[in-house]
């Protein structure tokens, strides 16, 4: 078994094999997904793929904040809404082409992130989560009841303009009109790929290390020259920009924004958190996998829902919430590093069944000797200890 895993992973290890394989897989995904029996070749299936890509972008950004830096945001649903409205505003009111509108949405969301992250300059701990929670509950209310915002977004062509309802124009690109969900899939795939590549750059560089340092020990990070306030706010801003881009993608996906959209409710922020906890905190592939599983979840629970409706005669609402909560709690107790972490430790266990790792061995020996403070200073470095020392 271990041998087989080694061979398989060795084959996939070189970048020139792994990346082209992944690209082909993603390009062919609209057809590959038809293997799963609940999906047929129709717009619903493709829209599911699109929602997965959108959720992936938010989740990767949130993972930079929560997974890498260790700060919880419950406000990403509201930032996401902000991105959606900003993108919609810039495309239809200002008339910017979609890619530029997306950049504008990202900047707008980044500004929101800046405000949300301000308390981070002064305080650590749960305060940020509290502030973002207030934002998440407040924004949908503001969107749905503010007349000023309503007039900003009012559609002059429609007579029954509701507050907070906003139409997004169809997107055309030179030589490629995005007409249906399959077309949007390739548009979104491009955007998501760019965002993921940017995230990978941040992840493994000085910036990513500084963020992880803050999560592990704020004290030591500070002593090593990491400016806590600056990096915490930076994490918030970057993470918010990802949510903003995702919001812009969503505005194109649905074509019409409504302030009461459940996607903008505070519960959606919990969905984002569930995605990264399920996939693996601090892991980019984890965020994408978690996003995928949570996109499938409502389809999977639909039959259960129907059964409940049939046997008890009640319509079931907010059913997924139960699963979000369950997934969060179960993951924290039994799979704290998510699917990616569980997979990694499984591989490690299979591979090292017979030879424990060198470090583990050292630890084991230290325990056996009863020396927890075994200074590993080699003798040749400092000379022999004098007799009787």
């Amino acid at each position: 078994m271990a041998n087989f895993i080694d061979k398989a992973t060795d084959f996939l290890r070189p970048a020139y094999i792994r990346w082209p394989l992944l690209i082909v897989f993603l390009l062919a995904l609209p057809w590959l997904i038809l293997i799963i029996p609940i999906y047929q070749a129709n717009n619903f299936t493709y829209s599911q793929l699109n929602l997965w890509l959108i959720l992936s972008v938010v989740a990767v950004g949130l993972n930079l904040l929560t997974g890498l830096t260790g700060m919880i945001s419950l406000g990403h649903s509201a930032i996401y809404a902000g991105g959606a409205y900003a993108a919609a505003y810039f495309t239809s009111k200002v008339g910017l082409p979609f890619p530029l509108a997306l950049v504008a949405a990202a900047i707008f969301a980044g500004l929101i992130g800046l405000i949300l992250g301000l308390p981070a300059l002064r305080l650590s701990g749960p305060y940020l989560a509290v502030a973002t929670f207030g934002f998440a509950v407040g924004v949908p209310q503001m969107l749905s009841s503010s007349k000023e915002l309503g007039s900003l977004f009012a559609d002059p062509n429609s007579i029954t303009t509701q507050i907070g309802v906003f139409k997004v124009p169809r997107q055309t690109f030179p030589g490629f009109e995005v007409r249906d969900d399959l077309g949007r899939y390739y548009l979104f795939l491009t955007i998501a790929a760019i965002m993921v590549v940017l995230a990978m750059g941040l992840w493994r560089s000085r910036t990513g290390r500084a963020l992880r340092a803050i999560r592990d020990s704020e004290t030591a990070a500070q002593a090593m020259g990491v400016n806590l306030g600056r990096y915490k706010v930076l994490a918030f801003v970057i993470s918010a920009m990802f949510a903003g881009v995702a919001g812009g993608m969503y505005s194109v996906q649905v074509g019409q924004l409504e302030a009461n959209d459940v996607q903008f409710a505070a519960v959606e922020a919990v969905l984002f958190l569930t995605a990264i906890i399920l996939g693996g905190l601090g892991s980019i592939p984890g965020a994408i996998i978690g996003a995928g599983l949570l996109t499938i979840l409502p389809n999977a629970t639909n039959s259960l829902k129907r059964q409940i409706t049939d046997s008890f005669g009640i319509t079931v609402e907010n059913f997924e919430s139960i699963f979000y909560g369950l997934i969060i709690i179960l993951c924290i107790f039994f799979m704290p590093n998510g699917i990616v972490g569980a997979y990694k430790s499984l591989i490690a266990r299979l591979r090292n069944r017979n030879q424990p790792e060198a470090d583990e061995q050292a630890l084991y020996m230290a325990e056996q000797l009863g020396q927890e403070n075994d200074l590993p200073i080699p003798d040749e470095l400092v000379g022999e200890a004098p007799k009787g020392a």
Partner: protein
Amino acid sequence: MTMTENQNLLEVQNLEISFGGLKAVSDFSMSVKRGQIVGLIGPNGAGKTTVFNCISRFYRPNGGRIMFDGVELTRKGADEVIKLGVARTFQNVELFKSMTVLENLLIGEHSRMKHTVFSDALMLPDSRQADRKGSSRAMEVLATLGIDKYANSLVLNLPFGVQKMVEMARALVAEPKLILLDEPAAGSNPNETYKLAALIKRIRSDFNVTVLLVEHDMSLVMDICEQLYVLDFGKKIAEGLPKEIQNNPAVIEAYLGEKEEVLD
């Protein structure tokens, strides 16, 4: 660079700090010359680590000045002192536990790297080059301390002794002028303490660094320190060469008093 032999690298003047009305350190002055190994000793709770925390800017002193290499440290933030050349270790080892030893050292080099978050995100050449350079520099430091075989181990899995060495390496990789060691010998047996003393001397010469250490264990400081300061109840009770300190009645009393407390 011209070495001015008599110039003080660190100069603490009339340091005062109190917590909630309780004076932790009062009217404390000390100076550390370039290239010296200086010890700050005293019984438990004497305020040694508090002085350290004032120098590394985790605490804000209520009064006094801390001059380091011509710069007033009390106006700097805790994240700025390392850029000026002050690195430290912690009494209870504050490593980044979920990372490898090498990554820990790369964070030690954080303030030496100058590229921006944009070149990180776009994976520009300067960002990758800085990382490559940083890694090879970190490996050199690890090799000098003889712990390079642990470079890719997770800190989490390492014995406490190795973790202490890693912490020292992380401070050294920042190329500080002054390294603050907080109780490096805590929990070591006499043989290890002897080795540690030799190591600290080697660190000074190999890394061309000045050492200030807080220590409870008298045997280590007597062996390596060129100048000692003794604190008791937040006040300086003695300073001088190790030999002078050894025979100082006030110091003996302070340490004896502690012994009696332990016996009670």
